[in-house]
Structure formats: C-alpha cells, structure tokens
C-alpha cells in the first residue's frame, strides 16, 4: 500500500496534538515513527486506523483520497494496528483462538454458526506459522504480557494485510521475542506490506527501518532514509537539542547493605540469596519467565515468599503490601494501567496516593497546600507533561503516565526501590530524566533492584547485574564482565 | 354483592382432612396481618393446620402458590385474590383437582367456590364518600388518596368513592393522588397536596395506614380536626384517632373477624357441613359515637392487637 498523509490535523479540545502532519509510506517500506512522549504518535495511529477522525487534512491510499470513518473501513483497506496499550486489543475472557478470529469478516468459520473446532485448528496453524507456541484454548487473561503482545501480532496477521502499524510492540518483549518480531516485520516487508513502526528504542529503529520520521509537537521535524541518519541526529530532531549522555550513570554505592534476601523461595524462583547496598543499583537479567518479576512482586508482598528478607539489617515481614510499604519498600509495576494508576483521578492525586499520610493531619484531613507543593515539585522534577496537575491522568500520553507512576513512588521516600520495566514506553529524553532521578535516589542511599528487558539500559544503569535462569540466580556480573553478551549467555545457557 | 353468574356453590363433601392453605394477597399491611391473626386464632380453636402464604401483591406468585398447594393436596384452599380475574385460574385448577376452594375479600370471577366471604370494596368507597360528605357538611373541597394503582381493591374503593362523591353536588374533589397504601408515602403526598390546597375540608384515604400518614401531615400544619379524615379498615391506630377526634370516621372491616369467619367456614366445609354460597359483609362506619362499642366488639372477638390501649 502507498499511504500518504497530507497536512493531517487533530486536536482534543484546545490541545492541538497533530498540527499538520504529512509523510508517505511506500509499499514494502518500513517507516519508523519516533518522537517524545505526547508528540502525537499514537494519535496519528488512531487517525490512520479510523478510530479517530482528523479535524482536517487528507489521507490518500494508493493516490486516492480516502475517508476511514471507522475501524472497519480501515480494516477493509487492509490496515491493521497493534495499539500501544494492549487493553485496547484483546478480550481477556475469550480464548486465544476466539481473540484471533473475533470478527471473522470473511466468514471462514461458517456463515451463521461458528465452528470452534475449525477456528481453533486454524489459530493453531497460524500461530505455528509465526513460530509461536500458545495453547489456542487458553484464556487471554492467563497469558503473560509478552504472550499477549505476540498474540496481537498474530491476530493482526490473520487478515489480509497491506499496512500494519506497530505502536511500541517491543515494550513488553525480551531480546529473544523482539528478534522473532523483527523477523516477522522483515517477512511482511518482503511480502510488500507497508509498516509503520513506533518505538522509543533507537537501536531497533536503526536495525529495522528504511526511513525515519520524527514527530515533535505534532509536526514532522525529520523525514529521511535511515541510512543517512545517526542516532544523535534523530534525538536532536526529537528533543530539540542534542542529548550528550543517554545513560548519565552515577556510582553511589556504599558499603552498608540495605536489602538482603536469604534463601528466598517462591512459586517461580528458588534459593535466592541477594544483597543490595545503599545507593546501589542491582540489575536482574534473564529471559521472560525466568522469575525475576515474580521475585520483585514477592518482595513487595504480592506473592508468597519463604525465606528471610532484611531491610537495613533487621528482618522484616513482607506478607502484604502494607508490610512492604511499612518497611519502606516501593514497587514500580510494569503494568501501569492495570496496577499502577487510577486513570480518572488527577495527576496530583495519583502522585500523592502512596504518601498521603505525610500530607494529612492527625485527623486524616489532607492538607491541600502541602500536597500541592510536594507533588508539584516532583512533577516538575520528572518533567511530567500535563496541562495541569489536576487533569485526569488518563489524558496524559503513555510515557508521561509512566513518569507520573514513578513520581508516586519517589514521593514515598523509599529505602528500597523495586523497579520492573521502569522506562517502558518512555521517550529518550524522559528516560534520561528517570535515570537522573535514580541517581538522586541512590545518592540518598536508596537500594534499587532493576528489572529491564532493555539490555543497554540494564547494563548502563546497574552497578551490578545478577542473571536469573529458571528461577535461580546463576551469575553475577560487574565491572568489565558486565555487558549485553554475557547477560544473554548466562540467561540462555541450558535453555532449549 | 358482586357475584358473577358463572360462580356456583360446590357441593359439600367431607374429606376428613384437617388442613388448609390460605394464600394472602399481601402481608405488607396491618390489615392483612390482622386477617391472618384472626385466621390463625380460629384455626387453633378448631384444630385445623393452617398453612399461610403471602403472594406479595403478585398475581403470578399467587397462582404459583395455589398450584403448589394443590399439588400438595391441601384439604381446602382459601384464597385472598390479588385480582378477581386473575384468581379464577387458581380456582379452576383446584376445581379440577377436586380440592374445595373458598375465597374472601375479593371474589374470583370464575370457577366454582365453596363459599365467598367479603367486604364490598365498591360499597366501602361509597360509604366513605357519604361519611366524608356528612363530615364536611355537604359542601367543600376534598382530596382522595388512592392505594396501589392497578390493584383490585384500590380500583374498587376509588370507583365507589368517585361515584358516590359525585352525587354530592357541592363537594369538589380538588386532588386525587396515590400513596400506595403506605403511611410514609401518604405523609409526603398529603404534605404536598396541602401546599397546593391549604383550604381543603376533607380527605378520603383508601386505607387507614394512609389516613395515619395524612394525619401526620395535617398535624404539621395544625389542621387536625379542622380537616375531616375518613379512612377504611378500622386498624387500631385509626380507632384511637377516631376516639381522640382526630379522624372523623373509618369504614371498619374488622380484619380479625374476617379471618376468624373464613377459617370457621373452612372448618365447616372440611367437616362436610352445608355453607352459604356468598356472604358479603358490610363494613361498619365507626365514628366517635360508636368507637367504644366497636372496640368492645373486637375485644369480645379476642382481637387484642386490633384495639388501641386507650379503648381497652
């Protein structure tokens, strides 16, 4: 498909999000669409998918001006979208097969009545073609984040495709799965399918795309073949000025051990012995399913944990979230929508939620002025872009939501910070901000456990990385021994 | 009386059974509670096992309960119909199962009844209209407060009241509102009606519960005694209010006596005795003049909760 966007504009109320966007995507071309959080990438996606109508401007498909009045119209043109928030793509209580063929526009599985057997068989075949092993009868709510992401891709490919938009598809995938995804994208490209690929990971952008389009404040600031660009140029087009240091790592580790786990056992992790010092960032490497997320959840009282946990040298109970918070442990969940934010509450209310006690009188009355001052400071430190602190958090862009979530935990002044994918969906500039905040925290002596499937981030931001495989700690990497290859090697050795 | 032609008396026939099922249209109202009390008192006296069901003003529930009682082969089915038309299915079912069936309060429009006892609701409305006319001296503005719309008794009392009040040329009905036979609703409705019509002379409430709510509303505006209130049923609170001069009259239909009468007739039917086909009872208009007499009559029946302490 040859898609042309001509001066597309879109605003929400008085917030002009797209201010005249024009670019082309040719058949078999992979265009990387990058830009800061809130630049308008997802909004553009929704305009192309028929979910939003542009206020003005035109969409041309193979040279013909086309109005896509709803998602069905877009699908009829062979346009498929994998939306950024997977809540928008899947049906948690339906099976994998039903999710894949929910619409069944071509009535493949019967004109009126649906044959579930045939549907399941076909779903199994389609998944195998894509190299995925998911039981097609399972409910989607039982799948892991990564599996859901893969399922969405498979779902999109059940239709006849001419253009696919992938909005941060790798945010939830590990290295291995990302590779699989890239292979799929390449296959599509060879089949002549156009691809718009949205990502905050520049390495992917450079590895995959034919052309890069940078969106900044709703306008295209750069549109050039990838081969002619350097990462620095792209970043400059995104942020406005040059970012010299992506990973401003400071080493703040001291001797005092703040968090210690002895003989930690849980459903999916075993015999964990681990120490994190004051000001130290300990990364945990591993593939999906190695148990590192479970370990963090267990330390925060969300899953049962046998063994002992010590904070500041004294044993603490982490049987519940309250216990954990009482021991000044904070946990940044990887799923900000389901577990992180209260979407229709204000940014401010979300940010102060876990630390309200500090802003309330003995009688439990919230001191608004104090709250406003403290949240305001954190919000501006983290550069959360919000029209106002009292706007609903749901109206922020994905990356800004992530920063708001981060701000909530910074506010609790934790001693131990457990972070699972802290920069998922966060733009380059904001990532750097988050890293700076981590530096500030470690300078204050906070002990950090970091889980990230963004390997460069893990390597750069950790003082030390422990690698987990099948629920056990199998290696510890520091100094020169700490690099992406070694992490991968330890994470995979022994795996099939 | 409003018996239909198609209703005939069932032949007496002793079954030797000593149990009865009584299906009450509702128990959400002291009148029917008192019917039940009277029925239970009489059943204890005559050694009848009485099974009481509450149809909660639902025709369908009523029919279902009747069906269950029939399949249980109850000795006699006593019906207090939610609606006269809708009760005939229950009667015919009992007829074809050869179970004697009787009704009270409202007469089923079809099927064969062993007997029927009831107050005449249309007549009750008429009596109330006349009493109210007398109370206000034949002229003035009055208000009608209706019961649960769509129920038989509310329809009939309202019909009687409206027919009869129309014959009093100088009386104008300035408002007709419904309060669902409920005291609290009547209080709010009457309060509002009084706003629009502060100069009324009388109120007819289709039952005493609502009359009590009306009295509360009048009290708040110091109109008690000035505005004449006529109710229906003769519950204890109403008798007390009549005795105290707060209420002008109530068309008393002693529910306790009704309950007793019904079960004693049921005993006769079970015993194979000949009973009268139809017994339409007339309510007794109780005013300040005869309230003590009426209270004594109730005490004589053994209806303790039906009589206010002030009249014992």
């Amino acid at each position, binding site marked *: 498909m040859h898609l042309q966007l001509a001066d597309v504009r879109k605003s929400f109320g008085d917030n002009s999000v797209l201010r005249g966007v024009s670019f082309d995507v040719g058949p078999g071309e992979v265009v990387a669409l990058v830009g800061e959080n809130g630049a308008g990438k997802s909004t553009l996606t929704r305009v192309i*998918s028929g*979910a939003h109508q542009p206020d003005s401007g035109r969409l041309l498909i193979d040279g013909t001006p086309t109005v896509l009045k*709803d998602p*069905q119209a877009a*699908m009829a043109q062979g346009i498929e*979208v994998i939306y950024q928030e997977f809540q*928008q*793509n899947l*049906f*948690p*209580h*339906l099976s994998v097969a*039903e999710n894949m063929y*929910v*619409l069944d526009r071509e*009535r493949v599985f*019967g004109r009126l*009545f*649906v044959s*579930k057997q045939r549907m399941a068989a076909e779903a199994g075949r389609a998944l195998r073609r894509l190299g995925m*092993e998911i*039981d097609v*009868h399972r*409910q989607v709510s039982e*799948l*892991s984040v990564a599996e859901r992401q893969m399922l969405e891709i498979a779902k999109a490919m059940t239709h006849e495709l001419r253009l696919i938009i992938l909005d941060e598809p790798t945010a939830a995938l*590990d290295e*291995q799965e990302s590779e699989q995804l890239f292979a799929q994208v390449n296959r599509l490209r060879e089949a002549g399918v156009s691809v718009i690929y949205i990502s905050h990971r520049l390495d992917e952008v450079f590895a995959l795309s034919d052309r890069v389009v940078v969106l900044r404040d709703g306008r295209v600031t750069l549109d050039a073949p990838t081969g002619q660009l350097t990462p620095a140029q792209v970043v400059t087009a995104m942020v406005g000025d040059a970012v010299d240091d992506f990973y401003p790592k400071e080493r703040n580790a001291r001797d005092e051990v703040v968090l210690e786990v002895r003989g930690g056992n849980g*459903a999916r992790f075993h015999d964990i012995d681990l120490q994190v010092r004051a000001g130290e960032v300990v990364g945990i490497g591993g*593939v999906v*399913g190695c148990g590192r997320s479970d370990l963090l959840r267990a330390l925060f009282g969300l*899953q*049962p944990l046998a063994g002992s946990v010590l904070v500041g040298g004294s044993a603490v109970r982490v049987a519940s979230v309250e216990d954990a918070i009482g021991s000044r442990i904070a946990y940044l969940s990887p799923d900000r929508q389901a577990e992180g934010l209260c979407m229709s509450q204000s940014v401010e209310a979300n940010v102060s939620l876990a630390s309200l006690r500090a802003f309330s009188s003995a009688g439990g009355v919230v001191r608004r002025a104090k709250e406003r001052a403290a949240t305001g400071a954190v919000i501006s430190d983290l550069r959360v872009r919000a029209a106002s602190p009292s706007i609903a958090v749901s109206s922020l862009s994905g990356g800004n939501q992530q920063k708001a979530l981060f701000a909530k935990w910074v506010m609790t002044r934790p001693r131990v910070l457990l972070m699972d994918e802290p920069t998922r969906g966060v733009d380059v500039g904001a990532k750097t901000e988050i890293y700076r905040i981590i530096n500030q925290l470690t300078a204050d002596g906070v002990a950090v456990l970091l889980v990230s499937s963004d390997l460069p981030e893990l390597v750069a931001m950790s003082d030390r990385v422990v690698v987990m495989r099948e629920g056990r700690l199998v290696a510890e990497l520091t100094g020169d021994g700490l690099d992406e290859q070694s992490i991968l090697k330890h994470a995979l050795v022994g*795996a099939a | 009386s409003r018996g239909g032609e198609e209703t005939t008396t069932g032949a007496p026939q002793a079954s030797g059974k000593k149990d009865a099922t009584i299906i*009450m249209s509702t*128990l959400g109202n002291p009148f029917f509670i008192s019917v039940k009390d009277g029925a239970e008192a009489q059943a204890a006296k005559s050694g009848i096992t009485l*099974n009481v069901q*509450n149809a909660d003003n*639902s*025709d*369908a*529930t009523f*029919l*279902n309960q009747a*069906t*269950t009682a029939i*399949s*249980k082969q109850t000795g006699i089915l006593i019906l207090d119909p*939610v*609606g006269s*038309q*809708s009760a005939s*299915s229950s009667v015919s079912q009992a007829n074809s199962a050869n179970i004697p069936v009787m009704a009270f309060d409202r007469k089923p*429009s079809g099927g064969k009844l062993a007997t029927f006892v009831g107050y005449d609701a249309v007549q009750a409305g008429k009596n109330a209209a006349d009493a109210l006319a007398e109370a206000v001296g034949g002229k003035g503005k009055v208000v009608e407060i209706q019961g649960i*719309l*769509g*129920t*038989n008794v*509310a*329809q009939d009392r309202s019909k009687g009241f409206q027919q009869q009040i129309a014959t009093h040329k100088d009386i104008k009905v300035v408002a007709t509102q419904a309060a669902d036979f409920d005291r609290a609703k009547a209080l709010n409705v009457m309060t509002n009606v009084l706003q629009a019509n502060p100069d009324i002379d009388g109120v007819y409430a289709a039952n005493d519960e609502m009359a009590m709510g009306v009295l509360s509303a009048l009290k708040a505006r110091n109109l008690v005694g000035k505005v004449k209130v006529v109710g229906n049923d003769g519950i204890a609170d109403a008798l007390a209010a009549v005795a105290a001069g707060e209420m002008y009259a109530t068309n008393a239909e002693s529910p306790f006596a009704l309950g007793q009468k019904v079960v004693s007739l049921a005993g006769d039917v079970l015993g194979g005795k000949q009973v009268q086909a139809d017994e339409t009872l007339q309510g007794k208009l109780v005013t300040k003049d005869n309230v003590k007499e009426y209270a004594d009559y109730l005490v004589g029946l053994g209806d303790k909760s039906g009589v206010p302490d002030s009249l014992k």
Partner: protein
Amino acid sequence: MTSKLKTVAGRLRAVWMLLLVGVVLSVTSPVFLTPTNLLNVALATSVAALLAAGQTYVIILAEIDLSVGSALGFSAVVTALTLGTYGLVPALAAGLATGAAIGLINGLLVTRTRMPSFIATLATMSVFAGLTLHITSGNPIPVTDYDFQGIGQARFAGVPVPVWIMLVAFGVFGFVLARTRFGRYVYATGDNVEAARLSGIRVHRVKILAFVISGVLASLAGFIITARLSTAQPTAGAGLELDAIAAVIIGGTSLAGGRGTLLGTLVGALVLGVIDNGMNLLDVSPFLQDVVKGLVILLAVFLDRNVDVLRRLLPRRAAETPARTPELAQHI
C-alpha cells in the same frame, strides 16, 4: 479440551446448588420429587427464566435491563387489547413488537446518549409502568380467546406449554449465544468494548440487539402470565427484574461482562423457583421466607465463588495473577 472441561465445571457449580436444595427438599417433603410438583416448579419458573434469558445477553454486555418487568406488563396489556379487537396472530405480533420497541428504546438510550443502562432502564421501567396504568386506567384486561389461553394452560406431551416455550427459547438463544458470530460479538463487546470497536465489531448494534432480545423475551413472558391468568394485569411484571437479575448472577454470569452462559441462567432461575416451591411445601412462615431466600442466594453465590476463592487462597496470591500453565517456557 481443558477449557471445555473448565466451562462445564463452571456451569456445574450452579447445578450443585440446585442439587443441594433439591436433596434437602426431597428429604423434608414427600411431595417435592413428584413429577407434578417438578413440572409446577418448571411452570412457575418459566416467566422469570425468560426474563433472565434476555437479561443474560444484556449482562454479558456489561449492561443491565431494569425495565423487563415493565416491558412484560406493557406488552401484555397491548396484547390483550389487540386480542380483543383483532384476534390471535395480530395480538401476538403486537405484543412482540411492543417488547422489541421497548428494547430498541433502551438500546438507543444506552448507545446513542451514553446513559448508564442502570439509569436509562430505571427510567424506562417507570415510564412503561406508568403508561400501562394509564392506558388501562389501572384495570386488568380479561382475555377470553381460547387459543391464547392455551399458551398458558395447555399441555403438550404432558408438559405445560410455558415450559416448552422456556425450553425452546433457551435452546435457541443459548445456541445463538454459544455458536453464532453474533454471540461471539456479545462476549467480546462485554469483555472489552474498546477492543471490540477497534476490532471492527459494531458494538452499538450488538448492544441494541441485546436489549431488543431482552424486550422480546419479556413480551413472551408476558404472553405466558396473561394466558395463565386469563387476564392481563397492569402490574404483572412489577419486581420481576430483580428475580431475573438474581437468576442470571446465581447462574454464574458476571456483572462485569464478558462471561456467562444461558444454561447457567436456566439453572439459576430453577434454583430460585425450587426455593419458592420448597418454602411453600414446607410451610415456612411467610415472614421468614424472605430470610430463607436471601440466605440461600448468599449460599449459592458463596459456593459458586468459593471454589475460586479456595483455589486461589491455597497457592496464595495467585488470585491476583491468574494461574499460568508452564507451557510457554518452551518457546524461548
């Protein structure tokens, strides 16, 4: 395979409750297990069950329909009035059309004006209850048509016609829900309306159609009540909506949408019918009947949920993240 078994087990939970109540009653009342009594239970259940069937569609869509009782009453009255003047077939058509129209109004209110269905159908419940009283002046409409009465009073192969109607309706609408494309759209839309819309499902149509189904089944239930009573009562449906919703929930359908089966609803309606029947058989004090009914509902739903709770509490916390089978480890 496993998922099929799980589904059946899920349904079975409501069945267990039915069996439990059934066994208690068989022991305590000699009459309970007789064929006539069981048919009576089915007969008495038919009206609430039909309302509950439509309600199931609506609840799977994460909506609610409080107007079913009023729709029943209104269409019953329309049917009875038409029957007097135009005869059987026009009367049935008019009744069904009335139910469908009320459903359509509900559906349009919910989809076009974005009113929460709770309040939209609460309002239409009030409107149609009032209209019913208004057009009848509160009086019941007698029905003398012999054929029409047959809908409520005749038997076929020894089984009362209303029971047949209930069974056929559950068969048809159960099949539609479980096996047709529309049924899948219902589940998908109830599960995640945004995803459904973005997947190209016309979610507004799906919702409107579900409300129409609910209205049509309410008018079918209205035929049964009217025929059984030989009269259309203006207040016939009052309060039935809560029974219908209770049946749906006891049957395992989630108010959150996306889950539920029509078979479960049938069992739920039967549980309620058996409780009513049993209390009448056992001569439970009418004052205590509400208490018993409330307690049995609590027990039913508790048992239903408890299987999950136990399963979740034992491997603690797994409650929060649904169990995962370890198959996926293979592909890495």
